[in-house]
């Protein structure tokens, strides 16, 4: 069973070349330009299985390292180092044919052994990869020849290609990849000055389409204001992720800059502890969802940016449906529901609030909103570390605020042991069944159903989706606007001559 639609792929490539042909012929951009990217997220080291932080994804994913599949900026999964692949009828054996002619930066050719080595690096005992668990169904990796990898699974896993998009393919002969690299991507590591900048140089023997620039320099800042000033003084060309709408005033309406407003996957969440009263009562959860003027909150935090969401699923996930109408803002309706639930005079609860922006201000907003329906909120400010110990591990809380950054993370609602303790057997089953679905359409149908159920249950109070704001000099184009999972593909960035 082949999952690739060759004809569609060919058509897409043709369309792409038609669309870009006039640009390429005119050569209105500098093919050897240096693109200076300003970021707040310096990687701790260069290995994404060694706790390097989100910065390494931003700099290296798709640029220095590639994977068997790529998660595109639009949220779809496409083959990258895979030429073709097929799955057995029982879905337990996947056979991948690698692209021929791919070489690592060191000059070594890409072989099946490298792929096996790379996957085992992520699933290893010592790996700190956040994706380790999602690959746990892999029981064996075999390499019948240099171009073929056979993966066997303990259970069907429709998201295997998606999960493999997180596995960087590293040369199995590479050593010390926390400080150097050996990938197959369009750039090689140039100079890395810790604490300040990381340079990527164009790899001239790259197997795919050559980058539209000559060099990329990620420049790191610890302070958002300094980063904004760097763009204003032309010290950087683009800022990967602006974290407050108030610094945008200096760029908006100025023809020298472009402000792009993409969709992130970061969700601001008021998570109830669904195990404990009164939040084990769906009416209470729905009442408080209706008592929240989310539009006003989003405006307070992000001005005119950001998106309202009615559940945990952002628009870039395939199972997104607009659910903002399930529990619309309605104070009177909220009061009626609370009375039905047995709390006509409201109640009191403690909201554990992480001490960093925007959580404290969001907590104060909720405190004022819920006072209107007779619910008293006690704000308890905690550190990120306390949050992890008290809430994530010990589940010792009534309600908390947190930002959830991951893509395709609705699966958390299928785990009754997760910190928020949501346990709906129908949802658990749908999410488990979706993973063992036989087709993507089936998977999407099941997860869409689960998505609707969690919204109906008001499992948590999903406050808003963060915007992904990229600001650049007007002469710089072609950067990713959504930045899913902090990726920032640099190979398509063009700088006008």
């Amino acid at each position: 069973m082949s999952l690739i639609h060759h004809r569609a792929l060919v058509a897409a490539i043709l369309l792409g070349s038609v669309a870009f042909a006039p640009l390429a012929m005119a050569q209105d951009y500098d093919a050897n330009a240096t693109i200076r990217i300003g970021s707040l997220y310096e990687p701790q080291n260069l290995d994404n299985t060694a706790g390097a932080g989100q910065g390494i994804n931003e700099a290296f994913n798709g640029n220095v390292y590639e994977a068997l599949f790529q998660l595109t900026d639009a949220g779809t999964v496409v083959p990258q180092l895979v030429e073709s692949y097929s799955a057995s009828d029982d879905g337990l054996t996947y056979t991948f044919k690698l692209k021929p002619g791919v070489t690592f930066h060191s000059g070594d050719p890409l072989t099946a052994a490298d792929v096996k080595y790379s996957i085992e690096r992520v699933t290893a005992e010592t790996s700190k990869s956040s994706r380790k668990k999602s690959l746990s169904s892999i029981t064996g990796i075999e390499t019948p020849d240099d171009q073929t990898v056979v993966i066997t699974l303990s259970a069907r896993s429709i998201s295997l290609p998606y999960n493999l998009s997180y596995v960087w393919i590293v040369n199995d002969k590479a050593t010390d990849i926390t400080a150097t690299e050996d990938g197959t991507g369009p750039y090689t590591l140039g100079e890395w000055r810790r604490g300040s900048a990381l340079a990527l140089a164009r790899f001239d023997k790259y197997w795919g389409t050559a980058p539209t620039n000559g060099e990329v320099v990620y420049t790191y800042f610890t302070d958002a204001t300094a980063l904004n000033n760097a763009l204003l003084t032309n010290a950087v060309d683009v800022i990967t992720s602006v974290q407050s709408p108030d610094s945008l005033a200096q760029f908006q309406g100025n023809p020298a800059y472009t402000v792009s407003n993409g969709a992130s996957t970061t969700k601001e969440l008021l998570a109830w502890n669904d195990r404990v009263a009164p939040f084990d009562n769906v009416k209470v959860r729905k009442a408080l969802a209706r008592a929240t003027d989310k539009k006003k909150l989003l405006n307070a935090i992000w001005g005119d940016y950001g998106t309202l969401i009615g559940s945990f699923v952002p628009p870039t996930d395939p199972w997104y449906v607009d659910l903002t109408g399930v529990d619309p803002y309605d104070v009177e309706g909220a009061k009626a529901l609370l009375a039905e639930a047995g709390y006509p005079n409201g109640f009191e609860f403690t909201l554990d609030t992480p001490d960093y922006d925007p959580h404290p201000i969001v907590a104060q907003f909720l405190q004022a909103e819920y006072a209107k329906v007779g619910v008293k909120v006690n704000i308890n400010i905690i550190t990120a570390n306390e949050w992890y110990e008290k809430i994530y591990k010990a589940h010792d809380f009534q309600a908390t605020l947190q930002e959830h950054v991951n893509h395709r993370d609705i699966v958390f609602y299928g785990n009754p042991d997760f910190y928020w303790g949501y346990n709906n057997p129908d949802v658990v089953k749908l999410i488990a069944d979706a993973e063992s679905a036989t087709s993507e359409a089936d998977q999407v149908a099941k997860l869409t159903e689960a998505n609707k159920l969690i919204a109906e249950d008001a499992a948590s109070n999903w406050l808003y989706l963060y915007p992904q704001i990229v600001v650049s000099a007007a002469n710089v184009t072609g950067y990713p606007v959504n930045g899913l999972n902090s990726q920032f593909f640099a190979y398509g960035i063009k700088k006008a001559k």
Partner: protein
Amino acid sequence: MTALQQTLLPRRRIVSASLTAGAILVGLHVLVALLSLVWLPHDPTGMTGGRLAPPSWEHWAGTDRLGRDFFTQIMIGSRIALTVGIGAVAIGAAIGVTLGTLAAFATRLLDDALAATLDILIAFPTLLIAMLVVAASDTASLGTAILALGIALSAIVARLTRILVKRVLLMDYITAAYTSGTPWYGVVIFHVLPNVWPTLSVNFALQFGLAVIAEASLSYLGLGAPPPNASWGRLLQEAQGTVYTAPIGAIAPGLALVSLVIGVNLLADGLRDIADPTRKGGR
């Protein structure tokens, strides 16, 4: 008018100038704090204005991101600052004076031990000790912050008290009091404390300023009184991200904080000059 009085006159005016300015600044804050108990321009948690509205007739210092009135919050901030200052100094004084006096009266060994402990405590910055106390408690509250700062200040007070009491104990009138049969507690209450009080009171005023700044720092770090208590430190922290688009949010609580601390320090200066005749005329 004698020549001596003439030379003293202009100096006296300088002294009373700092005292007057200090008293006015502190008095203003006390008035605002008292006023805030009975009247506020807006509901402090009411989201009555637009996002980051500039100062207007309706909102004298503009509004914050949630549309809450800044001026109202600063008024409440005055009350919190004064409460923390008075509370922390009271706790610091109670512990510090007791410990300091005890050390001065104690045996050589106990005195040395106490003095060494105090020296070690003073080696840590006040704010750090306060942070440790807050961290040791379960939940942050205004009470915890006051207690933490009081404990942190007590070491400074205790060390000063010990030295002052020791100096007084060497005086002839103390020997006279003992000789006339006054018990030790009578000596402390009637002879020692009245004589160390002038210096201590000046020090308390300075500690008050220190406590106000430390509380703002704690709140800035999220360790002070939890929201919605409008501590100036928290207002400053919340205004950090909007300092370019709505600078009033940082300037207003900053000014309030600075004016109270300068006021208290001027007051302390003035008080010191009255209390310590040898330093009359300033530094």
